[in-house]
């Protein structure tokens, strides 16, 4: 994947497959500690200990676990090649958290990329799921909660073309204001 934002989209797809109704995406950029931390947390069905050990190995995946696929091994590799690590915490029936850490200035760390497109894609296509997003850069933060937007929209669907266009611009502007 060329962008970390694409990995985020991929992780969110896993969460949706696991029937999550609440998904949080948190990005923390700490330039002093030289760390970029990425957290995706869901309340989906979770995984057994056995499965959560398996999904990080691309060559163990069998037909029955095929839905889990290549996504997590790819992200683990992306983290490790950029001086970081990936940790998977899952409780069956409760949910899954994927925490990934990168060395912020590592030459092989993929850029964060287009988070606005990622967020719009996941929010507009999955209005039944509540998404929370927070992006910290040093002392600044941009937060959003899809439920707040749904409340403001009333009976107009989240996927409405005008809403989608507004959402993209709104996130893009706020993400840009975080840039150093």
């Amino acid at each position, binding site marked *: 994947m060329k962008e970390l934002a*694409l990995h985020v989209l991929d992780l969110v*797809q896993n969460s949706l497959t696991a029937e999550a109704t609440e998904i949080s995406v948190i990005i923390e950029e700490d330039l002093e500690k030289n760390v970029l931390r990425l957290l995706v947390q869901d309340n989906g069905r979770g995984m057994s200990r056995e499965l959560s050990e398996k999904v990080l190995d691309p060559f163990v995946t069998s037909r029955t676990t095929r839905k889990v*696929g290549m996504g997590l091994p790819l992200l683990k590799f992306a983290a490790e090649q950029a001086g970081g690590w990936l940790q998977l915490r899952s409780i069956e029936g409760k949910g899954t958290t994927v925490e990934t850490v990168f060395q912020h200035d590592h030459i092989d760390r993929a850029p964060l990329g287009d988070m606005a497109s990622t967020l719009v894609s996941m929010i507009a296509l999955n209005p039944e799921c509540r998404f929370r997003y927070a992006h910290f850069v040093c002392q600044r933060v941009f937060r959003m909660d899809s439920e707040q937007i749904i409340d403001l929209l009333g009976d*107009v669907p989240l996927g*409405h*073309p005008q809403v989608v266009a507004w959402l993209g611009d*709104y996130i893009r502007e*706020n993400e840009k204001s975080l840039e150093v």
Partner: protein
Amino acid sequence: MKSLEELKKIRESAQQMMRLREGGDVTRLVVGMGTCGIAAGARETLTAIMDELQKRSLETVVVTQTGCVGMCEKEPLVDVIRPGQPRVTYGYVDAEKARKIIANHVVNNQVIGEWVVQR
């Protein structure tokens, strides 16, 4: 700067549009968003689709997503399902092709045969 306040205006104009189109048949577009689709550029395809629908004010088109359907090498995949017609699956759909598919197939009901990978 965009603000949440603006959403109220969008809500009002969208409600008016929704009243106009009540009862119309819906065309469905399905974008493959598995790891294979995302790696092949499905997000840009989806973004182009949503942008084109907004520009053309196509409010009777619903966009949904699906996971890996086993044709990873042909991703990004987009299905077009017009009311009363069978599903048509297009392969290697980048942003530009997505816009063409909307113009030719969704709006004018002309299937672009050479891009179809499955019917």
